[in-house]
C-alpha cells in the first residue's frame, strides 16, 4: 500500500507537470475577443447545420441517437419494439369489426328538424344541442338575394343560453 501511495506520488508529480503544457505565449490575449466577436456575429448559429439546430431544439432526440450509437443492444430493442408495434397495427387493422357507432347525433338530423320548424318558433332544446341548433337554424333561413340591401332578410333571434335559464 505504501509502495502504491509512493508510486501514486510520483505519478501525481508527473501529472502536475502537465500544467506546463500551455499554449504559445500571448494566446489568451485574444481569446476572449474572438469569443465575443463570434457571439456578436452570430457565427455560431450560422455555422450550425440544420441537423444541429434541430437537435438543439430537441435535445432528447440527440440523446436517443447517442444512446443508439453507444448501446447497439438498445438500438436493436428499440427497432424490435417498433416492428412489433407495426405488425400489431397491421393485424389489428385487418380484423373485421362492427360498424362504428356514432358518438354524437349528426347535425343533419337536428338541421332537418329545425328546417321543418317555423322560423318564428323559439326552440329551446337541451343544452348540448343549443349551438348546433342555432347554427343549423341560421343556415336554413330563407335565401338571401344579396348580402347587402336586401329587404327580405329574416332575422331569427338566437338563444345561446342553456335550456331552463
Amino acid at each position, binding site marked *: 500500500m505504501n509502495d502504491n501511495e*509512493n*508510486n501514486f506520488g510520483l*505519478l501525481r508529480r508527473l501529472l*502536475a*507537470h502537465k500544467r506546463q503544457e500551455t499554449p504559445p505565449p500571448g494566446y*489568451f490575449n485574444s481569446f476572449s475577443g474572438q469569443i*465575443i466577436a463570434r*457571439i456578436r456575429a452570430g457565427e455560431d448559429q450560422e455555422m450550425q447545420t440544420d441537423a444541429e439546430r434541430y437537435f438543439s431544439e430537441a435535445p432528447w432526440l440527440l440523446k436517443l441517437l447517442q444512446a443508439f*450509437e453507444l448501446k447497439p443492444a438498445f438500438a436493436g430493442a428499440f427497432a424490435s419494439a417498433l416492428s412489433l408495434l407495426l405488425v400489431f397495427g397491421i393485424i389489428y387493422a385487418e380484423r373485421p369489426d362492427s360498424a362504428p357507432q356514432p358518438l354524437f347525433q349528426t347535425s343533419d338530423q337536428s338541421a332537418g328538424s329545425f328546417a321543418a320548424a317555423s322560423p318564428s318558433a323559439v326552440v329551446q332544446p337541451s343544452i348540448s344541442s343549443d349551438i348546433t341548433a342555432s347554427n343549423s337554424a341560421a343556415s336554413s333561413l330563407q335565401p338571401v338575394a344579396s348580402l347587402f340591401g336586401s329587404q327580405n332578410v329574416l332575422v331569427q333571434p338566437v338563444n345561446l343560453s342553456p335550456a331552463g335559464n
Partner: protein
Amino acid sequence: MIMAEPAPIPVPETPVQTGEMELVRRAQKGDLEAYDQLIKRYQERIYATVYHMTSNHEDANDLAQDAFIKAFQALKSFKGGSSFYTWLYRIAVNKTINFLKQRKNRLHMSLNDLDFNTENNPDLVALISDKTPRREAGLKELQEKLNEALLKLSEQHRLVMVLHDVQGQSHEEIAEIMNCNIGTVRSRLFYARQQMQAWMADYLKPT
C-alpha cells in the same frame, strides 16, 4: 533525489468574490463587456481542462470557445443554484465528453507547443529513473506516453484525474462539476491512478 513539488496552481476565484454575480447579472442582460470579463476570469482553466482531456491544442481551442459561446446563450437559464464557474465547467466538460465520444478512435496529439522549460525542468528530469530501461527516453517521449496513457482512460476517469491531479481541484468541486457524489470521485480517481501507474511503470523512477 528529492523532488520539489510543482508550484501550486492559482486557486480559482470563487463566486462570492467581489463582482462576479454582478458580472453574471449584467451578462444575462446581454452586456458583452461583462461577459468578456467573465471569460478572462476562467479562460485558462477551462482551456486547460479541455486540453488535458483531448491532448490537442486545436481541439481545445475550438471546444473552449464553443463552451463559452454556449454558456452565453444559456446564461438566462442560469439561476445561481451553483457557482458560475461550476456551471461553466459542466458545459465545457459535457461538450468535451460528447466530442471525445464522437471521435473515440482519434489519437492525435500536438505537443509542439510545449513550453521549452518543460524539457529542462530538473523536477521532471528527476522523474525519469536512471535505473529504468527507458532511461534513454526523452522528456518529450515521456510527455507523449503520459498523454497516450491518459487517453486510454475512459472519459470519466480521465476527467477526474485531470481535474484533481493536474488542475488541483478538490473532490467536492469535482463531484459538483460531474454531478456525482464524492465517493464516486474518489473511487474513479483511485482506479485511474492504478491504471496510469501500470501503464507508466517503465517511465517512473522506482523507489
